[in-house]
């Protein structure tokens, strides 16, 4: 399958088209909306399912020395990427250090939906990946926030981290659900999965479609609201940074000797930017940073880029590099 075929197959999958539908509807100012509670319900479902399945995979495949390495590599990546992002932003844009640091935090962290979409692309291509990549995703959520706060503190503007903020970051909903269901899946294994597979496996892709429809609606509304924000430099950053992040992810995958599937997922984690946990942390820790900049970039530019073009590229590159 050529890269083009892959990209096209990906573009014409129900999940991407659902995202496109949402985006188009919002840009056309349709009043179509999905209630907040339903959107949250779907995200809880997706996190629970992806964590659980990852845990079961580890239970089945047995523990693996590379897991520890991968967790460490994930944490290092999440710590390091904000510095790369920050430098790139200072070159490409005129953002203040504060805004640049806030944006940087998002790109060091990850988007779990992009990760999920990545696993779908893998499945469609007939590849597998290690179940514990879910744990790597969880580990990568938070460290980037610390790097961003450090970047701000250096410029003398930050607020000290208080205990509440620590707890909020480390025990935020996505991390708790992802890690918790991963552990449950690990403990209960294939038996546990058999009992709930009809809930967390079979309908998964369908729920993902509706969730992406919602993300399209939210991204579209955000883009309409924040037109003024998207200067060329910022746009360029939103398209270049995922490539930088995915390159770093590829290096991690190769160093750890992971297969094509897991390496691709590492690239996806590096490339993707948070739009749930990190924005919330930023509102507390860096309230003066402009949220429409980081939300528009992360959800309105980088997320669609990864979803449509990024994923097939990362897959192709990962295959090439690993020979998988």
């Amino acid at each position: 399958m050529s890269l083009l075929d892959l990209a096209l197959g990906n573009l014409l999958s129900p999940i991407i088209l659902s995202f496109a539908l949402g985006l188009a509807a919002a840009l056309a100012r349709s009043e179509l909306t999905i209630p907040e509670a339903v959107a949250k319900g779907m995200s809880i479902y997706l996190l629970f399912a992806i964590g659980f399945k990852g845990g079961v995979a580890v239970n089945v495949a047995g523990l693996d020395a590379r897991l520890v390495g991968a967790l460490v590599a994930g944490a290092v990546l999440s710590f390091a990427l904000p510095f790369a992002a920050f430098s790139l932003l200072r070159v490409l844009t005129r953002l203040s250090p504060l805004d640049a640091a806030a944006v940087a935090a998002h790109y060091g962290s990850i988007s779990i939906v992009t990760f999920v979409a990545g696993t779908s692309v893998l499945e469609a291509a007939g590849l597998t990946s290690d179940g514990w990549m879910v744990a790597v995703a969880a580990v990568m959520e938070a460290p980037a926030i610390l790097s961003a706060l450090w970047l701000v503190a250096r410029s003398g503007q930050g607020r000290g981290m208080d205990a509440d903020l620590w707890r909020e970051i480390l025990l935020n909903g996505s991390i708790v659900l992802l890690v918790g269901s991963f552990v449950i899946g690990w403990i209960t294994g294939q038996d546990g999965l058999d009992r709930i597979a009809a809930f967390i496996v079979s309908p998964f892709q369908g729920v993902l479609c509706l969730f992406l429809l919602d993300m399209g609606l939210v991204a579209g509304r955000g883009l309409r609201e924040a037109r003024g924000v998207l200067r060329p430099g910022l746009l360029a950053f939103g398209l270049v940074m995922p490539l930088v992040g995915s390159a770093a992810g590829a290096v991690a995958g190769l160093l750890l000797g992971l297969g094509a599937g897991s390496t691709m997922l590492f690239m996806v984690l590096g490339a993707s930017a948070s739009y749930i946990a990190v924005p919330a942390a930023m509102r507390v820790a860096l309230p003066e940073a402009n949220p429409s900049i980081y939300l528009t970039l992360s959800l309105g530019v980088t997320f669609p880029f990864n979803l449509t073009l990024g994923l097939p590229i990362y897959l192709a590159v990962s295959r090439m590099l690993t020979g998988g």
Partner: protein
Amino acid sequence: MQTHPAKRVEIIIEAMMERRLTDALVKAGVTGFTVLPVQGGSGRSGQWSRAGQVSRAGGMRAVVCIVREEALDTLLDAAFTVVERHIGVVCVTDCQVLRAERF
């Protein structure tokens, strides 16, 4: 029906700051308040709506707090330390309450 003068304070604050605000209120001895959900709004930082949102960032809450007049300053001081660096609105109205012993 016998009513008693009091103050109604309405604080519109980011959802992420809700717990910090209510903790500060309780610490300052203000233990009576009610939190209302907020659907959307507009301010200097632009227009927003909760429809379809998953992140807690970008949502707000309205905290309504009815206090005796003499407790108003303590309340405002406590609220201000939390609201200070954040977006949001604090608004105080004169009111009359039933059952004054509850405040």
